[in-house]
């Protein structure tokens, strides 16, 4: 009896997955999941974090500061607005930061969130300190 119940539950789950997968993929067709990085980026002097130099550009540093100010996570459209980029370009920028291990991108075709990693948080703090030092 228990085995029959298990099979019934599994069948219900599989049927619903088949229906939903098609619908979710159809929704995705109208949205982008990729973007090129911004072209004009100016390299900043390397920042040392955890004993290794981290090289950032001005726009990458700006995105990290936006994320830190937001508490560690922000939607891509706000990062775009705060850094003066389009959503597509800011997605490309976030991918550059993800390749450096500084952020994680949690995204569906419709919604995209960028989250600072622990290393990203430290780099953002170091970037902020460096910026304050230079402005003094």
């Amino acid at each position, binding site marked *: 009896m228990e085995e029959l119940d*298990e*099979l019934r*539950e*599994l*069948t*219900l*789950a*599989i*049927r*619903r*997955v*088949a*229906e*939903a*997968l*098609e*619908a*979710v*993929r159809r*929704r*995705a067709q109208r949205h982008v*999941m990729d973007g090129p990085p911004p072209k004009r980026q100016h390299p900043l002097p390397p920042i040392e974090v955890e004993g290794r130099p981290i090289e950032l550009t001005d726009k990458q540093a700006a995105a990290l500061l936006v994320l830190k100010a*937001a508490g560690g*996570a*922000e*939607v891509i459209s*706000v990062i775009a607005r705060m850094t003066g980029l389009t959503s597509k370009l800011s997605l490309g920028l976030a991918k550059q930061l993800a390749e450096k291990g500084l952020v994680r991108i*949690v*995204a*569906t*075709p*419709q*919604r995209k*969130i960028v*989250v600072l990693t622990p290393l990203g948080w430290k780099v953002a703090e170091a970037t902020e300190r460096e910026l304050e030092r230079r402005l003094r």
Partner: protein
Amino acid sequence: MHVEVDGKRYKLEWREAALLLLMRLVEWGALTLSDVELVASGHIGALRAVRRLMELGLVEGFNVRGTRIFALTEEGARVADAIRRKAELAGLWRIVEEGVGSGGA
């Protein structure tokens, strides 16, 4: 249904199992609440299902400026794979394959 992964036994309701599988199958590895509602038949059911999966440590939830996204944890991915193996053994996986054609299921 019961799923055992790395010596740990999970008791999941069919909607919860379906959510784990869907998150595993979509190429981008995450779902919005609206996607979850497709599986869980409505807003309340969706919230209840993702909350339980988060309590079990199988799903991570991100909520920023009203944007909610849910993604599998590593353990969640292992449980989803175990459910898929169960479905394959029972001859049920073809329902997914036939449903989405050659879409990568």
